[in-house]
Structure formats: structure tokens, C-alpha cells
């Protein structure tokens, strides 16, 4: 089936896609192929490993109980940079995978201006120009790209202080923390919106598919692109023919 995901994900015969079977049932659309999902969960795991090991170093007087999880303080400190590199490696691949659909457009600026309507649920469906990703998703994506670059630069400086010197470490220390705090704030919003905040979203990263209704609700322009149907019309049609609701 022709989806926009195939359009920008140019290697349909990628090894992981061949290993991971994606089943698309009727009434569903392919959202994320196996390769994308694999990357997401790979850097997701590394994110939490780095986050928890970092917490023990960030504020030991509260979070010292995190360090035994990684084999004690010295081991935590030794592993943390590798967790970070694991995150950056897999997220880097995802950034290449998603660079095109994450391109910022005028529609995303409009989306950001309507943020209040989005947060208060005044828009029950997204504006018709919201494509594969909305402005908020793109903002978070580019924040993580910038944050990861900051992580790597400041992290390497703190990893090898004998090369870069004490002043560079003292500055990096603050930047590394700021990046972590911003991402920590982001992960709550990310997890909320992908689970209870927007029901039906989680399966996009597990089975790789979403319902058509999910698509016209949250990404109307993408729905139109994939199915060729007008999302507003599809919604009206569904309202008309609606029989008792399907459990989610």
C-alpha cells in the first residue's frame, strides 16, 4: 500500500523491516514501519538508562538510591556516558529517518499559534493542514536534536577533563543539566500524549498502525495523502454511519 511513510522511508527492504512483520488490518493505516519502531524503542531504553544513571549523579542527596541499580556510584559514572552514546546513536539514525517529514513549514507555525485550542481540546480534530507530524511533535524532535548535540559536546568535555580543562567542565556541567531538564519535561508530555492523553496513539509505535479515524482526527493532511479521501468528508460519513462505539 502506498503510504507517506514509504515515501520518505526509502528502504522498504531494510533488514529490520523484513524481520519485523507489520500487519495492517482493514480500517487501519501504516504509521511507523518496523525499522522506525525498533529505533524508537532502542533509544527509548537508552534514554531511561541515561536518565536514571544521570539522576544519581545530578542530585545524589535525593537520588542516591538510583546508583545501586547500575552497580554502585563508580559503575554508574562509568556507564552513563555509554548509555548517552547509545541514545545519541539510535536517535541519530531516527533523525536521518525523520529529517524530511520533520521539516518545519508554515502550517507548523500556525499550529503553534493554535496551541491553546489544542491544549484545551477546543479543536476536536486537528486543522486540515496537519500532516504526518504536527508542530508540537516537530518542536520536540528538533529540541531533542539540539539537546543531543549539546549532550555529546558537553558530555565528552566532562568525560575527558584532562584534555579540556576545569573551566570547560564547569560550563559543560550546567549546559548538560539544562538539556537533561528540558528533555525530562518533554518525556512527561511525550508519554502522556502517546498513552492516556490521546487514546489510540500507542499502537503506532507497537504494532505500527493507527485507525483511520485516528489519522483524520490527529493528522488530517496525512490521512488525505494516504487514502486520497477528504478527512472532513470521511469524518462526516463516519458520524452518519456510526453504530455502537468500538472499544479502544
Amino acid at each position: 500500500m502506498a503510504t507517506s511513510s514509504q515515501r520518505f522511508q526509502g528502504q522498504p527492504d531494510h533488514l529490520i523491516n523484513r524481520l519485523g512483520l507489520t500487519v495492517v488490518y482493514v480500517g487501519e493505516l501504516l504509521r511507523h514501519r518496523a525499522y522506525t519502531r525498533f529505533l524508537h524503542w532502542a533509544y527509548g531504553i537508552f534514554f531511561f538508562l541515561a536518565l536514571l544513571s544521570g539522576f544519581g549523579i545530578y542530585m545524589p542527596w535525593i537520588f542516591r538510591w538510583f546508583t545501586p541499580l547500575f552497580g554502585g556510584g563508580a559503575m554508574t559514572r562509568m556507564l552513563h556516558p555509554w548509555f548517552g552514546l547509545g541514545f545519541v546513536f539510535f536517535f541519530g539514525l531516527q533523525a536521518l529517518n525523520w529529517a524530511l517529514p520533520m521539516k518545519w513549514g508554515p502550517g507548523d507555525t500556525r499550529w503553534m499559534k493554535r496551541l491553546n485550542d489544542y491544549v484545551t481540546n477546543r479543536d476536536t480534530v486537528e486543522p486540515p493542514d496537519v500532516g504526518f507530524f504536527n508542530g508540537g511533535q516537530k518542536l520536540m524532535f528538533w529540541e531533542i536534536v539540539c539537546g543531543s548535540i549539546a549532550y555529546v559536546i558537553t558530555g565528552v568535555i566532562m568525560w575527558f577533563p584532562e584534555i579540556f580543562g576545569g573551566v570547560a567542565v564547569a560550563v559543560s556541567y550546567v549546559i548538560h543539566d539544562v538539556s537533561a531538564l528540558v528533555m525530562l519535561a518533554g518525556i512527561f508530555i511525550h508519554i502522556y500524549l502517546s498513552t492516556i492523553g490521546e487514546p489510540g496513539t500507542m499502537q503506532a509505535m507497537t504494532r505500527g498502525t493507527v485507525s483511520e479515524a485516528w489519522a483524520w482526527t490527529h493528522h488530517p493532511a496525512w490521512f488525505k495523502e494516504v487514502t486520497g479521501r477528504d478527512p472532513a468528508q470521511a469524518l462526516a460519513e463516519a458520524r452518519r454511519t456510526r453504530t455502537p462505539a468500538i472499544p479502544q
Partner: protein
Amino acid sequence: MSDRKTLQIQKISGHPGPVPGAGTQRQEQVCKLIDTTTCIGCKACEVACVEWNDMPFQPTMFDNTYQTMPDTNWNYWNLIKFNEVSHEDGSFQWLMRKHQCMHCADPGCLAACPADGAIVQYRNGIVDFQEENCIGCQFCVSGCPFNVPKFNPSTKKVYKCTLCSDRVGQGLEPACIKACPTGCLHFGTKDDMLMIANKRVTQLQQHAGLKDAGIYDPQTIGGTSVVYILHDATNPEKYGGLPKNPRIPLSFTLWKNWFKPLGLIASMMTFAGVILHYVTEGPRRVQPQPPVKEIDGGEAKKEN
């Protein structure tokens, strides 16, 4: 210290008058006084330090000066820094400065350290590393204004001068003091050492013509438990990296103590925010569900 305090006599039976020695205060803070004007650079203190602390000696490098090696090391905590200083009148001066941990009252290493119990400051002023708790992050190196802590790559721990806390705890003076042949090193309470230092500075100013002579006990870090007498206290930099106003980087004071907890709270507010959003605004649901019959008929699968 505390055991001596607990065994001080408080009441005496059948004794006239007050308890002898009542109200006396014990000066707890110890101090090492280094008189650079009488140091001859013999390195006896370096050897005594290596011997007492039982450290393996490593090959060094001769750099055409009277300095044992370029810098202190994880197994070499005490180094006489040699500096040749030229004066405007064409004369020159050899400055010997015994370089080791300064045991700051407000230690930058301790402020920077993120490991529970890896750095302690005793009530007598000694700042000591507890290597078994060290995680090897080397933030202490960055926090120290004197570049004292040194990393051992093979053990992944940081080491520095202990001011012979093991000896001082037993009522002995540090090994370097014991070895000094010229008497340029003194050890005692901080008050006593400052008194000796002041006397010596007055002597230098009045009788040796060193009008800039003075004490180095930087107050920007609350004073130190190692105090220098310098020929020229107006310019400590020329003694080889002795900062005039040593300071702890703001990352390890302002940021670490204030902005870190506040930043974490601010970050955790988003967690409270999403919960609040769920309660007040509710989830964004799919509009409306796809018709049932279409799903029921949909046995067919499509594969990627």
C-alpha cells in the same frame, strides 16, 4: 577531639572553688604554615610524603629547573614549585613554593563532588578524600581553584594530600613538617600559625627590606588550613599558579545548590501538568470511531 571533650571534668566532690580548667576552649582548627622565604628547595618534604603515604614512585622528567617533576600526581601530592622571577633592576629571584592541597575552609572539590561521602571535611579543617566512595567523575578537579586533585586512570579514583590526617589524628605532625630541615614548615593550631606568620612578616618587612611580604590565607574561600608567608604577597601568581583570589566555579555553588533543585521542580511540574490536563481537559479522543460493520468484515490483512 570529642572524646577529650566528653572526659572533661564538670564537677568534683569535696573540692573548694570552681573546677580547674573549666571554660577553657580547645582550638580545633589545625594549620600548616609554609615560610617560602626560608625554603631551600631540598625536597625532603616530597620524599617524606611519598614514604609516609607509601606511594609507588614513578619516573619523572628533568625540565632544566630545580623542580622534581612538572606537576603533582595522583601518587605525588607534594611538590616544591620552582620559579625564577626577573626583576626590573636586572636581578632575579628563585622562588620555592611547597605546593599541595590547601585544605580550604570552603572546599571547591567538596562542593563539586556528586558522590555521597567521597569528600569530607573534618572539624580540624582537614579536607580528606574517601576513595572507596569516589566515583571517578573528576568534578573535584574542576572545582578546585588550585588544581590539586589528581586522577589515577587505572583505579579511576582521585587522590590528593590528606594533611596526614592519619598522623594528625594520633597527635603527630604531618610527615612533611617532620622532614623539613630549615624549619620553614610549622604545624599547629590556626591561631598559633597566624601569630607566628604575623611575627615573621613584621620581621621580613622591617629587617629584610621586603616591604611587600605578607601572609597568603585567601578569604575568598574562607581561608585555608595551609598558610604561606610570601616575599611578595601582592603577586602570589608568580609563585607558580597561586591565585590571588581563588574562587569556586559558580556551577558548583549557585547552579548546584539553587538552580538544580529549582530546575528539577520546574521540570517535574510538567508531570503535574499532564495529570492536571487529564483531569481538567480530559483526553483527546478519536473523532468518531470507524463504523463497526467495516471492521467486522475486515478479516483481510495487508502486510508492509
